[in-house]
């Protein structure tokens, strides 16, 4: 299945991209995240939360269909 990965703010600065598409068979958010960190080691020491299809998700959540996983740095609204 195809996962669209989004990076925002300081994370996009680290990865030098804001969007990549990844073909994967991985089924948990945490395992998928590990694969992304291998690809973009600069993210390893950064603080972020993850959203799958616009909802915050825990690492043990399942990815059971194609969708969008966003890496969100600390919020700074207001």
């Amino acid at each position, binding site marked *: 299945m195809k996962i669209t990965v989004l990076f925002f703010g300081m994370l996009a600065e680290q990865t030098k991209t804001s969007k990549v598409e990844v073909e994967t068979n991985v089924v948990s958010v945490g395992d998928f995240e590990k694969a992304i960190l291998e690809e973009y080691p600069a993210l390893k020491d950064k603080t972020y939360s993850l959203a799958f299809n616009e909802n915050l998700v825990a690492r043990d959540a399942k990815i059971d269909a194609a969708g969008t996983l966003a890496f969100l*740095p600390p919020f700074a*609204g*207001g």
Partner: protein
Amino acid sequence: MKKVITEGPISPVKIGDSISHHQVKTDIGAHSIFLGQVRADEIDGKKVSAIDYSCYEEMAEKIFHEIRESAFEKFELTCMHIYHSKGIVKAGEICLFVFTSSRHRKMAIDACTWIVEEIKVKVPVFGKEIFDDETHQWKVNH
């Protein structure tokens, strides 16, 4: 769904217009307004000249909508408006406008405070603080 995110700073004229639009709603007895303004913080001898806001817009609008729905459930509001900037907002300009109206002051004030706190914690908005020497750092809400 009403859009919250707006390009650039929120003009004081827009805020004034928004207040005057409520003069026909005569069941309102109290308005509460919160305005977030970009502060020219000084960090290591460098001054913040602007914040460049970016966001995960689809998710941000969805969460603004959820905050709006919850606020109507929790507080007796007549109406509510939220605007948040994206893009460059210079020091001294307004980046957030929260406007709640109710029959009485307590509901309007409490709702306004609650909404602002929710926004700070839940909405995926990111702020690049740009210094006067054109270097930058990323803002984090505390």
